[in-house]
Protein backbone atom coordinates (compact mmCIF):
# COMPACT_ATOMS: atom_id res chain seq x y z
CA UNK A 1 0.00 0.00 0.00
CA UNK A 2 1.16 3.55 -0.68
CA UNK A 3 2.79 5.50 2.12
CA UNK A 4 0.30 8.31 1.51
CA UNK A 5 -2.72 6.03 2.02
CA UNK A 6 -1.18 4.63 5.19
CA UNK A 7 -0.57 8.13 6.51
CA UNK A 8 -4.16 9.15 5.80
CA UNK A 9 -5.54 6.03 7.48
CA UNK A 10 -3.33 6.55 10.55
CA UNK A 11 -4.47 10.17 10.71
CA UNK A 12 -8.07 9.01 10.54
CA UNK A 13 -7.35 6.53 13.35
CA UNK A 14 -5.96 9.27 15.59
CA UNK A 15 -8.95 11.53 14.82
CA UNK A 16 -11.32 8.65 15.69
CA UNK A 17 -9.50 8.27 19.02
CA UNK A 18 -9.80 11.98 19.68
CA UNK A 19 -13.52 11.94 18.87
CA UNK A 20 -14.05 8.94 21.16
CA UNK A 21 -12.21 10.74 23.95
CA UNK A 22 -14.32 13.83 23.35
CA UNK A 23 -17.52 11.75 23.43
CA UNK A 24 -16.43 10.19 26.73
CA UNK A 25 -15.66 13.61 28.18
CA UNK A 26 -18.77 15.42 26.94
CA UNK A 27 -21.74 13.12 26.72
CA UNK A 28 -20.67 10.33 29.08
CA UNK A 29 -19.05 12.17 31.98
CA UNK A 30 -20.71 15.52 31.22
CA UNK A 31 -17.43 17.37 31.81
CA UNK A 32 -18.41 20.62 30.15
CA UNK A 33 -22.16 20.32 30.62
CA UNK A 34 -24.60 20.57 27.77
CA UNK A 35 -23.86 22.29 24.51
CA UNK A 36 -27.39 23.73 24.46
CA UNK A 37 -28.12 27.33 25.41
CA UNK A 38 -29.32 27.53 28.98
CA UNK A 39 -30.42 30.02 31.61
CA UNK A 40 -29.86 29.74 35.34
CA UNK A 41 -32.48 29.63 38.07
CA UNK A 42 -32.04 29.05 41.79
CA UNK A 43 -34.03 27.40 44.56
CA UNK A 44 -33.58 27.10 48.32
CA UNK A 45 -34.13 23.80 50.07
CA UNK A 46 -34.12 22.95 53.77
CA UNK A 47 -32.68 19.52 53.02
CA UNK A 48 -31.37 18.23 49.70
CA UNK A 49 -31.08 14.64 50.98
CA UNK A 50 -28.59 13.21 48.48
CA UNK A 51 -29.24 15.40 45.45
CA UNK A 52 -26.06 15.66 43.37
CA UNK A 53 -24.67 17.87 40.64
CA UNK A 54 -25.77 16.97 37.10
CA UNK A 55 -29.07 15.58 38.43
CA UNK A 56 -32.10 16.07 36.17
CA UNK A 57 -34.58 18.91 36.45
CA UNK A 58 -37.91 17.77 35.07
CA UNK A 59 -41.33 19.16 34.28
CA UNK A 60 -44.01 16.44 34.16
CA UNK A 61 -41.21 13.86 34.03
CA UNK A 62 -39.57 15.35 30.94
CA UNK A 63 -36.06 16.68 31.36
CA UNK A 64 -35.75 20.46 30.95
CA UNK A 65 -32.34 21.03 32.55
CA UNK A 66 -29.71 19.91 35.03
CA UNK A 67 -28.49 20.81 38.52
CA UNK A 68 -25.14 22.56 38.15
CA UNK A 69 -24.20 23.63 41.66
CA UNK A 70 -25.23 23.06 45.27
CA UNK A 71 -23.96 25.13 48.17
CA UNK A 72 -24.90 26.21 51.67
CA UNK A 73 -26.39 29.68 52.00
CA UNK A 74 -24.54 31.12 55.02
CA UNK A 75 -27.22 33.53 56.38
CA UNK A 76 -30.30 31.38 56.05
CA UNK A 77 -28.51 28.02 56.55
CA UNK A 78 -30.35 26.39 53.69
CA UNK A 79 -29.08 24.72 50.54
CA UNK A 80 -28.96 26.89 47.44
CA UNK A 81 -29.34 24.80 44.30
CA UNK A 82 -28.35 26.26 40.94
CA UNK A 83 -30.11 24.81 37.92
CA UNK A 84 -29.51 25.33 34.21
CA UNK A 85 -32.71 25.22 32.19
CA UNK A 86 -32.70 24.86 28.40
CA UNK A 87 -33.37 28.17 26.69
CA UNK A 88 -36.21 26.84 24.57
CA UNK A 89 -38.14 26.08 27.80
CA UNK A 90 -38.84 29.77 28.48
CA UNK A 91 -42.46 29.48 29.58
CA UNK A 92 -42.11 28.34 33.22
CA UNK A 93 -44.20 30.70 35.34
CA UNK A 94 -42.64 32.60 38.24
CA UNK A 95 -44.76 30.91 40.92
CA UNK A 96 -43.56 27.40 39.98
CA UNK A 97 -42.61 25.10 42.84
CA UNK A 98 -39.77 22.62 43.05
CA UNK A 99 -39.60 19.27 44.78
CA UNK A 100 -36.77 16.76 45.28
CA UNK A 101 -37.97 13.34 44.13
CA UNK A 102 -36.50 9.86 43.80
CA UNK A 103 -36.68 7.96 40.54
CA UNK A 104 -37.95 4.45 41.20
CA UNK A 105 -37.23 2.59 44.40
CA UNK A 106 -33.44 2.70 44.24
CA UNK A 107 -32.81 5.41 41.67
CA UNK A 108 -31.08 8.74 42.09
CA UNK A 109 -32.63 12.03 43.21
CA UNK A 110 -33.95 14.56 40.73
CA UNK A 111 -35.83 17.83 40.86
CA UNK A 112 -39.44 17.95 39.78
CA UNK A 113 -40.70 21.40 38.82
CA UNK A 114 -44.45 22.01 39.03
CA UNK A 115 -45.51 24.95 36.89
CA UNK A 116 -47.74 27.61 38.48
CA UNK A 117 -50.36 29.89 37.03
CA UNK A 118 -48.77 33.38 36.82
CA UNK A 119 -48.18 35.03 33.46
CA UNK A 120 -44.73 36.24 34.42
CA UNK A 121 -42.03 33.64 33.59
CA UNK A 122 -38.75 32.53 35.19
CA UNK A 123 -35.69 34.28 33.80
CA UNK A 124 -31.94 34.03 34.21
CA UNK A 125 -31.19 34.49 37.92
CA UNK A 126 -34.75 33.97 39.20
CA UNK A 127 -35.13 32.33 42.59
CA UNK A 128 -37.92 29.85 43.25
CA UNK A 129 -39.22 30.29 46.81
CA UNK A 130 -41.76 27.50 46.95
CA UNK A 131 -39.71 24.35 47.52
CA UNK A 132 -40.27 20.98 49.10
CA UNK A 133 -37.28 19.14 50.55
CA UNK A 134 -36.22 15.61 49.91
CA UNK A 135 -37.99 12.85 51.73
CA UNK A 136 -35.50 11.44 54.24
CA UNK A 137 -36.46 7.98 55.35
CA UNK A 138 -35.01 8.30 58.86
CA UNK A 139 -37.02 11.45 59.59
CA UNK A 140 -40.16 9.78 58.32
CA UNK A 141 -39.63 6.73 60.55
CA UNK A 142 -38.82 9.03 63.46
CA UNK A 143 -42.08 10.92 63.03
CA UNK A 144 -44.04 7.71 62.70
CA UNK A 145 -42.55 6.30 65.91
CA UNK A 146 -43.15 9.58 67.74
CA UNK A 147 -46.83 9.53 66.72
CA UNK A 148 -47.16 5.92 67.84
CA UNK A 149 -45.74 6.76 71.25
CA UNK A 150 -47.99 9.78 71.75
CA UNK A 151 -51.14 7.81 70.84
Amino acid at each position, binding site marked *: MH*TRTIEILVGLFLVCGLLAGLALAMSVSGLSGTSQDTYKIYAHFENIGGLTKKAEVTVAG*VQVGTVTNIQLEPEMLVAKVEMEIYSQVNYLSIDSSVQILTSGLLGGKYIGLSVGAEDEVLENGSVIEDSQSALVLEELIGKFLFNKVSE
Partner: protein
Amino acid sequence: MLDFLASLGRGFFDTLAGFGRATIVLYRALVVWPQPSVSFPLIVKQLYSIGVKSLLIITVSGLFIGMVLGLQGYTILVDFGSEQSVGQMVALSLVRELAPVVTALLFAGRAGSALTAEIGLMKATEQLASLEMIGVDPLRRIVAPRLWAGFISMPILSMIFAAVGIYGGALVSVEWLGVYSGSFWSVMQSAVDFYDDVLNGVIKAIVFGLVVTWIAVYQGLESVPSSEGISQSTTRTVVYSSLMILALDFVLTALMFGDI
Protein backbone atom coordinates in the same frame (compact mmCIF):
# COMPACT_ATOMS: atom_id res chain seq x y z
CA MET B 1 16.40 -35.82 43.65
CA LEU B 2 19.53 -33.78 43.22
CA ASP B 3 18.83 -33.49 39.49
CA PHE B 4 15.36 -32.27 40.25
CA LEU B 5 16.66 -29.59 42.61
CA ALA B 6 19.27 -28.55 40.07
CA SER B 7 16.69 -28.21 37.29
CA LEU B 8 14.44 -26.24 39.65
CA GLY B 9 17.28 -23.85 40.38
CA ARG B 10 18.19 -23.58 36.70
CA GLY B 11 14.59 -22.83 35.82
CA PHE B 12 14.49 -20.12 38.45
CA PHE B 13 17.67 -18.48 37.21
CA ASP B 14 16.56 -18.82 33.57
CA THR B 15 13.35 -16.98 34.45
CA LEU B 16 15.28 -14.26 36.24
CA ALA B 17 17.65 -13.90 33.29
CA GLY B 18 14.62 -13.67 31.00
CA PHE B 19 13.22 -10.78 33.05
CA GLY B 20 16.62 -9.13 32.90
CA ARG B 21 16.91 -9.51 29.12
CA ALA B 22 13.39 -8.18 28.64
CA THR B 23 14.22 -5.10 30.72
CA ILE B 24 17.43 -4.55 28.75
CA VAL B 25 15.48 -4.81 25.45
CA LEU B 26 12.99 -2.21 26.68
CA TYR B 27 15.74 0.08 27.94
CA ARG B 28 17.88 -0.14 24.80
CA ALA B 29 14.91 0.34 22.49
CA LEU B 30 13.38 3.32 24.26
CA VAL B 31 16.10 5.20 26.13
CA VAL B 32 17.89 6.70 23.13
CA TRP B 33 18.50 10.12 21.71
CA PRO B 34 15.29 10.84 19.71
CA GLN B 35 15.64 11.16 15.93
CA PRO B 36 12.15 12.25 14.84
CA SER B 37 12.96 12.38 11.12
CA VAL B 38 14.00 8.72 11.11
CA SER B 39 11.68 7.19 13.66
CA PHE B 40 8.45 9.06 12.90
CA PRO B 41 7.70 7.43 9.49
CA LEU B 42 8.50 4.03 10.99
CA ILE B 43 6.07 4.63 13.86
CA VAL B 44 3.34 5.75 11.44
CA LYS B 45 3.76 2.53 9.47
CA GLN B 46 3.50 0.46 12.64
CA LEU B 47 0.50 2.48 13.84
CA TYR B 48 -1.19 1.36 10.64
CA SER B 49 -0.46 -2.34 11.06
CA ILE B 50 -1.03 -2.40 14.84
CA GLY B 51 -3.73 0.22 15.37
CA VAL B 52 -5.73 0.78 12.21
CA LYS B 53 -5.98 -2.90 11.35
CA SER B 54 -7.30 -3.67 14.88
CA LEU B 55 -10.02 -1.03 14.54
CA LEU B 56 -12.67 -3.28 12.98
CA ILE B 57 -12.57 -6.03 15.60
CA ILE B 58 -12.51 -3.41 18.39
CA THR B 59 -15.53 -1.45 17.14
CA VAL B 60 -17.60 -4.55 16.41
CA SER B 61 -16.92 -6.17 19.78
CA GLY B 62 -17.41 -2.84 21.57
CA LEU B 63 -20.79 -2.37 19.93
CA PHE B 64 -22.01 -5.84 20.82
CA ILE B 65 -20.68 -5.78 24.38
CA GLY B 66 -22.40 -2.42 24.94
CA MET B 67 -25.64 -3.76 23.49
CA VAL B 68 -25.53 -6.86 25.69
CA LEU B 69 -24.83 -4.74 28.77
CA GLY B 70 -27.81 -2.54 27.93
CA LEU B 71 -30.09 -5.54 27.45
CA GLN B 72 -28.94 -7.40 30.59
CA GLY B 73 -28.92 -4.27 32.72
CA TYR B 74 -32.42 -3.36 31.62
CA THR B 75 -33.91 -6.80 32.36
CA ILE B 76 -32.43 -6.76 35.87
CA LEU B 77 -33.11 -3.12 36.75
CA VAL B 78 -36.66 -3.04 35.42
CA ASP B 79 -37.67 -5.42 38.25
CA PHE B 80 -36.72 -2.72 40.74
CA GLY B 81 -38.26 0.06 38.67
CA SER B 82 -34.84 1.67 38.24
CA GLU B 83 -34.36 1.18 34.53
CA GLN B 84 -33.11 4.78 34.25
CA SER B 85 -29.89 3.62 35.93
CA VAL B 86 -29.04 1.35 32.98
CA GLY B 87 -26.98 4.15 31.43
CA GLN B 88 -24.93 4.49 34.58
CA MET B 89 -24.36 0.73 34.71
CA VAL B 90 -23.33 0.46 31.05
CA ALA B 91 -21.04 3.49 31.17
CA LEU B 92 -19.29 2.66 34.44
CA SER B 93 -18.66 -0.99 33.61
CA LEU B 94 -17.37 -0.11 30.15
CA VAL B 95 -15.22 2.86 31.07
CA ARG B 96 -13.69 1.36 34.20
CA GLU B 97 -13.28 -2.30 33.36
CA LEU B 98 -14.49 -3.79 30.14
CA ALA B 99 -13.06 -1.32 27.63
CA PRO B 100 -9.41 -1.54 28.80
CA VAL B 101 -9.47 -5.26 29.59
CA VAL B 102 -11.37 -6.60 26.58
CA THR B 103 -9.51 -4.26 24.22
CA ALA B 104 -6.20 -5.45 25.66
CA LEU B 105 -7.19 -9.13 25.31
CA LEU B 106 -8.27 -8.60 21.70
CA PHE B 107 -5.17 -6.49 21.08
CA ALA B 108 -2.95 -9.31 22.39
CA GLY B 109 -4.65 -11.78 20.08
CA ARG B 110 -4.81 -9.54 17.05
CA ALA B 111 -1.66 -7.39 17.18
CA GLY B 112 0.58 -9.03 19.81
CA SER B 113 0.65 -12.41 18.08
CA ALA B 114 1.38 -10.77 14.73
CA LEU B 115 4.26 -8.79 16.26
CA THR B 116 5.83 -11.92 17.75
CA ALA B 117 5.50 -13.90 14.53
CA GLU B 118 6.94 -11.05 12.45
CA ILE B 119 9.97 -10.47 14.65
CA GLY B 120 10.45 -14.22 15.15
CA LEU B 121 10.52 -14.79 11.40
CA MET B 122 12.92 -11.86 10.96
CA LYS B 123 15.19 -13.55 13.46
CA ALA B 124 14.80 -17.00 11.83
CA THR B 125 15.66 -15.66 8.38
CA GLU B 126 18.59 -13.72 9.89
CA GLN B 127 17.27 -10.33 8.84
CA LEU B 128 18.01 -8.98 12.33
CA ALA B 129 21.59 -10.26 12.13
CA SER B 130 22.10 -8.70 8.70
CA LEU B 131 20.77 -5.36 9.96
CA GLU B 132 23.38 -5.51 12.68
CA MET B 133 26.03 -6.37 10.09
CA ILE B 134 25.35 -3.17 8.15
CA GLY B 135 25.52 -1.13 11.33
CA VAL B 136 21.82 -0.60 12.07
CA ASP B 137 20.66 -1.41 15.58
CA PRO B 138 17.63 -3.71 15.12
CA LEU B 139 16.32 -2.70 18.53
CA ARG B 140 16.01 0.90 17.36
CA ARG B 141 14.99 0.16 13.79
CA ILE B 142 12.60 -2.78 14.31
CA VAL B 143 11.62 -2.95 17.97
CA ALA B 144 11.31 0.67 19.09
CA PRO B 145 8.68 1.76 16.48
CA ARG B 146 6.57 -1.29 17.31
CA LEU B 147 6.72 -0.54 21.04
CA TRP B 148 5.74 3.10 20.54
CA ALA B 149 2.93 2.17 18.16
CA GLY B 150 1.59 -0.26 20.77
CA PHE B 151 1.67 2.35 23.54
CA ILE B 152 -0.13 4.89 21.36
CA SER B 153 -2.70 2.52 19.85
CA MET B 154 -3.99 0.85 23.02
CA PRO B 155 -5.50 3.89 24.78
CA ILE B 156 -7.03 5.09 21.49
CA LEU B 157 -8.55 1.67 20.80
CA SER B 158 -9.83 1.45 24.36
CA MET B 159 -11.50 4.87 24.16
CA ILE B 160 -13.12 3.94 20.86
CA PHE B 161 -14.30 0.67 22.41
CA ALA B 162 -15.88 2.50 25.37
CA ALA B 163 -17.55 5.18 23.25
CA VAL B 164 -18.95 2.71 20.72
CA GLY B 165 -20.12 0.42 23.53
CA ILE B 166 -21.95 3.21 25.34
CA TYR B 167 -23.73 4.27 22.15
CA GLY B 168 -24.57 0.57 21.56
CA GLY B 169 -26.06 0.39 25.06
CA ALA B 170 -28.00 3.60 24.40
CA LEU B 171 -29.30 2.16 21.11
CA VAL B 172 -30.69 -0.93 22.84
CA SER B 173 -32.07 0.63 26.01
CA VAL B 174 -33.28 4.00 24.68
CA GLU B 175 -34.32 3.21 21.12
CA TRP B 176 -35.52 -0.37 21.44
CA LEU B 177 -36.51 -0.85 25.09
CA GLY B 178 -37.83 2.66 25.63
CA VAL B 179 -35.82 4.01 28.57
CA TYR B 180 -36.34 7.79 28.67
CA SER B 181 -33.28 9.28 26.97
CA GLY B 182 -33.10 12.35 29.24
CA SER B 183 -32.72 10.23 32.37
CA PHE B 184 -30.47 7.72 30.59
CA TRP B 185 -27.85 10.36 29.79
CA SER B 186 -28.22 12.58 32.87
CA VAL B 187 -28.03 9.68 35.35
CA MET B 188 -24.95 8.51 33.45
CA GLN B 189 -23.38 11.96 33.53
CA SER B 190 -24.00 12.42 37.24
CA ALA B 191 -22.45 9.02 37.98
CA VAL B 192 -19.40 9.05 35.69
CA ASP B 193 -16.55 11.33 36.70
CA PHE B 194 -14.10 12.34 34.00
CA TYR B 195 -10.96 12.13 36.13
CA ASP B 196 -11.85 9.23 38.41
CA ASP B 197 -13.44 6.98 35.83
CA VAL B 198 -12.53 7.96 32.27
CA LEU B 199 -8.91 8.93 32.87
CA ASN B 200 -8.25 5.95 35.14
CA GLY B 201 -9.60 3.72 32.39
CA VAL B 202 -7.22 5.35 29.92
CA ILE B 203 -4.30 4.84 32.33
CA LYS B 204 -5.22 1.17 32.56
CA ALA B 205 -5.25 0.95 28.77
CA ILE B 206 -1.79 2.57 28.51
CA VAL B 207 -0.37 0.11 31.05
CA PHE B 208 -1.91 -2.86 29.22
CA GLY B 209 -0.61 -1.59 25.88
CA LEU B 210 2.88 -1.35 27.34
CA VAL B 211 2.73 -4.85 28.80
CA VAL B 212 1.26 -6.52 25.71
CA THR B 213 3.69 -4.99 23.20
CA TRP B 214 6.63 -5.54 25.51
CA ILE B 215 5.80 -9.25 25.94
CA ALA B 216 5.12 -9.63 22.19
CA VAL B 217 8.38 -8.01 21.12
CA TYR B 218 10.44 -9.88 23.69
CA GLN B 219 8.92 -13.26 22.78
CA GLY B 220 9.68 -12.53 19.13
CA LEU B 221 13.31 -11.72 19.89
CA GLU B 222 13.68 -14.79 22.11
CA SER B 223 11.96 -17.24 19.78
CA VAL B 224 13.77 -20.38 18.67
CA PRO B 225 14.51 -19.78 14.97
CA SER B 226 12.36 -22.56 13.54
CA SER B 227 8.74 -22.84 12.44
CA GLU B 228 7.89 -24.70 15.66
CA GLY B 229 9.74 -22.14 17.77
CA ILE B 230 7.83 -19.25 16.23
CA SER B 231 4.49 -20.95 16.77
CA GLN B 232 5.40 -21.58 20.42
CA SER B 233 6.47 -17.96 20.95
CA THR B 234 3.24 -16.70 19.41
CA THR B 235 1.21 -18.91 21.75
CA ARG B 236 3.28 -17.75 24.71
CA THR B 237 2.68 -14.11 23.78
CA VAL B 238 -1.09 -14.54 23.85
CA VAL B 239 -1.11 -16.63 27.05
CA TYR B 240 1.35 -14.46 29.02
CA SER B 241 -0.26 -11.21 27.86
CA SER B 242 -3.74 -12.37 28.82
CA LEU B 243 -2.59 -13.53 32.25
CA MET B 244 -0.66 -10.30 32.85
CA ILE B 245 -3.63 -8.18 31.75
CA LEU B 246 -6.04 -9.90 34.13
CA ALA B 247 -3.60 -9.86 37.05
CA LEU B 248 -2.57 -6.24 36.49
CA ASP B 249 -6.22 -5.27 36.13
CA PHE B 250 -6.89 -6.43 39.66
CA VAL B 251 -3.87 -4.56 41.00
CA LEU B 252 -4.75 -1.35 39.14
CA THR B 253 -8.41 -1.56 40.14
CA ALA B 254 -7.40 -2.01 43.78
CA LEU B 255 -5.11 1.01 43.54
CA MET B 256 -7.60 3.24 41.70
CA PHE B 257 -11.02 2.34 43.10
CA GLY B 258 -10.46 -0.04 45.97
CA ASP B 259 -8.88 1.92 48.85
CA ILE B 260 -6.73 -1.11 49.69
